[in-house]
């Protein structure tokens, strides 16, 4: 399944946040979106997931959803968004309960996704008993349970320390290698972007426009070992971002 954003423009109270953004997320592709703070990345992702209506432009899906997909467009949130009153398995169960799945089958799905995210031992734990990294793994398990076609990830690793982030990145790469999900991955962290993205879309400062697109053909699984080759790419993206940040800075001092 493909996600197409066509000429998305959006305003909040007279202030333009997104300006004419078009992009495509192809089947099995991870598209990373980077950009300065406040340029509208989260807004773009909300529009892509149908949680918000753009003022102009359209978010479109093309192609059939994969067999058995309960929620083709599935989010992973920066703050995990787990229900604190439900256990790990209860949180996964939540997203299956509305689909009329028999209890036994639901149990099987829950056991399967918890096993895939190495959480089987924590099925009965409450979110407050888990570390940040484990909470995000629960959120990933919950997303997997509905068999998504496209994952929408808004800075999923930003709330985690760098070691945990590294581990979860490996998990995501392993997962992608197995399941070839597509994803739209918003991040501040350029290292994450070059490790996970087959394409990196750099947005300008507000109003967010597409400033540059960087393609990376290196297979995801090899990237951890070939970090040195990614370094120049990361540097290039960083240069663009720095320019934007500097210009944003100058703009504010002009107003003052």
């Amino acid at each position: 399944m493909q996600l197409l954003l066509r000429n998305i423009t959006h305003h909040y109270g007279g202030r333009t946040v997104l300006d004419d953004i078009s992009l495509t997320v192809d089947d099995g592709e991870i598209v990373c979106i980077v950009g300065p703070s406040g340029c509208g990345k989260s807004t773009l992702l909300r529009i892509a997931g149908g949680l918000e209506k753009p003022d102009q432009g359209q978010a479109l899906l093309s192609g059939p959803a994969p067999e058995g997909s309960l929620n083709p467009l599935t989010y992973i949130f920066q703050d995990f968004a787990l229900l604190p009153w439900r256990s790990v398995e209860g949180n996964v169960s939540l997203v299956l309960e509305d689909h009329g799945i028999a209890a036994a089958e639901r149990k099987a799905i829950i056991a399967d996704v918890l096993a895939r995210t190495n959480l089987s031992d924590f099925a009965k734990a409450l979110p407050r008993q888990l570390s940040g990294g484990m909470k995000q793994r629960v959120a990933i398990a919950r997303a997997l349970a509905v068999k998504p076609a496209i994952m929408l990830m808004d800075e999923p690793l930003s709330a985690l320390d760098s070691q945990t982030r590294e581990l979860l990145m490996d998990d995501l790469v392993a997962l992608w290698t197995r399941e070839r999900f597509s994803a739209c991955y918003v991040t501040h962290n350029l290292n994450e972007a070059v490790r996970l993205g087959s394409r990196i879309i750099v947005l300008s400062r507000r109003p967010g426009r597409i400033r540059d697109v960087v393609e990376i053909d290196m297979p995801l699984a090899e990237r951890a070992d070939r970090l040195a080759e990614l370094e120049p790419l990361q540097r290039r993206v960083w240069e663009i971002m720095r320019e934007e940040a500097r210009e944003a800075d100058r703009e504010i001092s002009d107003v003052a």
Partner: protein
Amino acid sequence: MSHDTTRDVPAAGVSETGNQRPVPFRGGGFVHRSLGPVAPIVFLVILAIWELGSRSGFISAIALPAPSEAFGALVDLFQTGMLWKHLGASLYRLIVGWTLGSLLGIAVGLFIGLFSLARAGLLPLVSALFPVPKIALLPLFIIWFGIGEGSKVATILFGTFFPTVIATYGGVDNVDRNLIRMGQSFGLSWLSIVRKIIVPGAMPAILSGFRISASIAIVLLVAAEMIGAEFGVGAYILMAGALFALDQLIAGVALLSVIGLIIAWLIGKLEKRLLSWRT
């Protein structure tokens, strides 16, 4: 000699000065431990001082009867079998009034919390009616609901309804918006979001509302039993007051306090069960 021993300690780059002292401790506090026997001890000490004061004549018997006299009145009540009649009548009014008031309050609170139209239409009404003393409306209630149980239950119902509404809609407003957005992003139905996300999220506020509304219900019980009640703890207290039978009056007040204690304990149990997920 002491100089030598401190040298032995492998301190990483610490320059030694003679004057060593521990870092002053400034943490601690602001956390509750359960101190089981404290509450009964406080109770018993107050009772003992009171009893001693009465026995020694320091507290005049006309001003305040001794606890033992009040206890005697209670025993009297028990032996004549009137205790259960009074308690039964009062508990019935409390339970029916409080349950109906709370259920209606939660329902209306949810409406106000969920729908803009309900908020615009009902919230000013709630704000206008909440401060009206329900005791002042007693004559109206009697006309509307009759002199029997109806008016008494209605007084308690109205008294508990408003604080529950306010606690509930405040709780709904405080539910993490991100959790609701999460529910929407997984395509949960509206009813599922309300049942599984909003109501549990508002539960802490609803339960602390219960604590307040239960106390208000007991306060209003006495008011409600002022008129035309044959039995009831409130009626018993008012009768004792009219006769200046202070020992009976204190015995009745003690009964109300015990009811209050038991309700608070029950709500505490409920909180432990329903809110064990809280940090």
